[in-house]
């Protein structure tokens, strides 16, 4: 077995509780923060907005560095044997499919926004690229169990979010970007971590403190999203020879730098996620208008279609889907991919300045979690996944 899911097939009784613990951590923390924020912002808005204004920089630009660092750790591990990105050719079809999964909703978004006569909402266009890896993963597992479509989904999510990060850079006003500052500082950051790696430094601290700080400065002073500072740094950390599986916790006795980083950062990152929900999901419901509808409509309609088109193009280019993945599974997956949630909130906050327009886009990002329910409904209607006559979960994930 070569997929990341293969490990979970070996020891389902041990892996499933981990998945549920993961789900509890990632599915509850941000919504709890968001729920507190929404309630507070509508009951005592003055104190809520004063509080969040005081801490938003530290949460969005500093604390979230750890969360994205951990997500990047999963991606970096996925490139080693046993990971979904190993060998790299496996990512080709999802990469091509993700272009359809993002471009079709992007076109739909640009067409839907004018219908609601709130033209500035279009400034949140990078949000349509967002796919919440964690929440989407849980819904995919709920519907499909251990199916070959799971690694396919993870690859899709990684590709769409990577395209989203590029979109964010494109959306940033050119006047706010300082490319020379960015280039110099980022080159210094990469040089530092490269030297550390070649010197066989095995603790993660110098990588994160020296390289991470330089990278953070490069992004922040260069006019980009500083929360992504660890993304270029993490791949340089020494890691295990094999991937233990996507979102599988590192063993407490693991000695490699990447696992030690995960063990150290896990709880602070969860706190960051909670604070991220608290700081960003609060807005006055009275600020919402019809433009709020643009994002959910565009992604709920266009993402399944975009995935079908993108996959069709990939197959026309002689790339092959896993044998057990057909059009019904793709439609369901298209709905799962509409869940932007955490990533959508992040993209929204990064792309649009504070104000009523951002509030409307954030509400759309929160509503996007409804894509999970649509996916369950679609799976039931199409009789696939757990709703199929032959439960595909029994099929090999190595397809």
């Amino acid at each position: 077995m070569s997929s990341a899911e293969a490990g979970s097939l070996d020891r389902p009784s041990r892996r499933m509780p981990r998945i549920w613990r993961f789900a509890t951590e990632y599915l509850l923390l941000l919504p709890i923060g968001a729920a507190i924020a929404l309630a507070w912002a509508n009951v005592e808005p003055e104190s809520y907005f004063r509080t969040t204004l005081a801490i938003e920089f530290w949460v969005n630009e500093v604390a979230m560095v750890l969360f994205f660092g951990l997500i990047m750790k999963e991606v970096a591990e996925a490139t080693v044997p046993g990971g979904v990105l190993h060998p790299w050719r496996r990512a080709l079809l999802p990469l091509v499919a993700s272009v359809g999964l993002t471009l079709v909703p992007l076109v739909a978004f640009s067409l839907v926004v004018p219908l609601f006569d709130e033209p500035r909402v279009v400034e949140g266009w990078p949000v349509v690229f967002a796919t919440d890896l964690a929440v989407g993963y849980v819904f995919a597992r709920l519907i499909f169990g251990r199916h070959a479509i799971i690694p396919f989904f993870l690859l899709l999510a990684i590709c769409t979010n990577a395209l989203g990060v590029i979109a964010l850079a494109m959306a940033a006003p050119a006047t706010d970007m300082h490319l020379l500052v960015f280039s110099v500082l980022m080159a210094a950051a990469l040089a530092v971590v490269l030297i550390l790696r070649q010197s066989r430094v095995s603790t993660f601290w110098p990588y994160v403190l020296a390289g991470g700080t330089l990278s953070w400065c490069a992004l922040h002073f260069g006019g980009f999203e500083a929360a992504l500072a660890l993304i270029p740094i993490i791949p340089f950390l020494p890691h295990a020879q094999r991937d233990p599986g996507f979102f599988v916790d590192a063993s407490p006795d693991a000695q490699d730098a990447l696992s030690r980083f995960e063990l150290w950062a896990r709880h602070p990152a969860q706190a960051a996620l909670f604070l991220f929900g608290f700081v960003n999901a609060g807005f006055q419901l009275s600020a919402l208008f019809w433009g709020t509808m643009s994002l959910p409509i565009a992604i709920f309609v266009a993402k399944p279609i975009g995935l079908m088109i993108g996959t069709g193009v990939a197959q026309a280019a002689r790339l092959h889907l896993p044998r057990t993945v057909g059009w019904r599974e793709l439609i369901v997956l298209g709905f799962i991919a509409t869940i932007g949630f955490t990533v959508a909130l992040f993209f929204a906050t990064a792309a649009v300045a504070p104000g009523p327009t951002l509030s409307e886009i954030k509400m759309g990002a929160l509503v996007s979690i409804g894509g999970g329910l649509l996916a369950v409904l679609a799976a039931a209607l199409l009789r696939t996944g757990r709703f199929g006559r032959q439960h595909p979960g029994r099929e090999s994930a190595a397809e």
Partner: protein
Amino acid sequence: MRAWSTSVVRRAVAAVVQLSLAVAALAGTQGSTLPNAAGSLKFAVIGDNGTGSREQYDVAEQMVRFHKQFPFDLVLMMGDNFYGSQRPADLEKKFGVPYKPLLDAGVKFQASLGNHDQIHTVNYAPIGMGGQRYYTFVRGPARFFVLDTNALDQTQLTWLDNALQGAKEAWKIAYFHHPLYGNGGRHGGDVQLRVRLEPYFLKYGVQIVFSGHDHVYERLTPQNGILYFVVGSSGQLRKGNLGQSNSTAAGFDRDQAFLACEIVADKLHFQAISRTGATVDSGEYQRPARSGN
């Protein structure tokens, strides 16, 4: 026979109503409360006007009538200058045509952006934005700060900080689309914007803030020493949508309206006029002693 008589009665009632409205309009405009002093700064305020509807045209006609006795030469626009389609022909229909008599009389319009305005309208010369989302200009004793509250980025806040710091005029007036305070039932005050903007206004002594967005007219009691107006019914109207609270000083939500203002020395005089020409609010505001540097 019966149908004929009903029709006659209806026409007669309609004629009486129209005559009454005309009389009321004349009575209202003749009852101007503004000093109309020579050399004073005279301006009008409109918001949420760009519907291209009969009601917008009625308000525009009322402004033209008022202009004849109170020759304001500046109109502040609170945003939502254009609803719906915003092609060149639409911009004419929703701005160029209704305000043509004022434009021909040399009145200058200075707009801010609302949530319904497409960003390209900043380049529509007659609304005076000069291609900018936010900008400042001086008229007589007042400096105006025009903001884009749809997206209040840090660059804009830094600009505002610098612009306010450098302002030496006695009067500092800010305006933008979304109200920081208000009792409109649909939206009300936007607290997220308030916590970001109000500290700058207090720090540098802004005295007057105009906004729109809620489709009513409202004047609030001074909040932290700043006088706030909501003028969001110069085309749109949300009838009966204005609530009451301790912060309500005056309001009008039964018909469309615009606001006329005059600054004479340390006093701002204001008069809100309805679509039919009735004065629905008026008064004066003394500039606080601490403001104006």
